[in-house]
């Protein structure tokens, strides 16, 4: 079964003047892990190289993609789910203006321990 995704790779622009695009550094990925074209509902996912966190780069990527979802993809709803314990991710999402709609309990398994159920935060931004 086809599972459609739309991903963008995140590059850090070289500081050198007129540096070629090939010298930019790959540092992560941001995109839509689930797309519903009928409902115009898109779920966003992302990750960033640990060496580049804490610099506002993930926030910039999330904001850019959210903007693109609403203007280009005509989104009615953009959602982000993350483990309730992932405070780094939650901070980025909240700064990007997403509302915490609720906490879905026992919604997923811990990535590192498949016998442990974890709660997910459901964050969303909507087009009124």
């Amino acid at each position, binding site marked *: 079964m086809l599972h459609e995704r739309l991903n963008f790779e995140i590059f850090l622009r070289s500081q050198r003047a007129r540096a070629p695009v090939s010298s930019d550094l790959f540092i992560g990925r941001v995109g839509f892990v689930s797309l519903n074209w*009928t*409902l115009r*509902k898109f779920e966003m996912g992302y990750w960033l190289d640990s060496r580049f966190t804490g610099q506002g780069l993930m926030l910039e990527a999330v904001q850019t993609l959210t903007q693109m979802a609403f203007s280009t993809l005509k989104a*009615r*709803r953009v*959602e982000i789910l993350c483990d309730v314990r992932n405070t780094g991710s939650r901070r980025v999402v909240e700064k990007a203006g997403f509302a915490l*709609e*609720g*906490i*879905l*309990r*026992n*919604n*997923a*398994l811990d990535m590192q321990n498949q016998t442990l*159920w974890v709660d997910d935060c*459901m964050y*969303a931004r*909507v*087009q009124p």
Partner: protein
Amino acid sequence: MFDSIQASKPELERWQAWAQSPPTLEECELECRSEIARIAARTAVIYHLLTLENAVLIGEIGFSVIDWTLRKFELRFWLDSRFTGRGLMTEAAQALTDFAFESLEARRVFMLCDSRNVAARRVAEKCGFALEATLKNNAQDVQNSSAWVDECVYARVE
């Protein structure tokens, strides 16, 4: 099943996407066969609600969107309009949810419904489900695909 759906057209049309073009007698039979197949393939658990007096079908209840690894089940149901308001669906939902936790080792049983579907919300609340979230613009109005609606997520967990 056909009679029950026909008798409940206004209420079913209001909240159920599948009821927008009510099934014919033949389509009801096809649906029953499809349900048997889904139960055998373990992609759904479906029960028919029958009256005690003469075993007439008055509704359906079951789980769909089952994730056996995550032990996550989505509760869905409908009831013949002539039998509403008597606590019958609450009784069925309570029994099925308990069954999920006791026999299917469920970790999460959840239900999604239009936030305006007061009757469905009451069933969930009476069965001890917590309202975890209201998802804005999560679905289209089943009667008007140009209108977006909010959906409530109710859940009980182990």
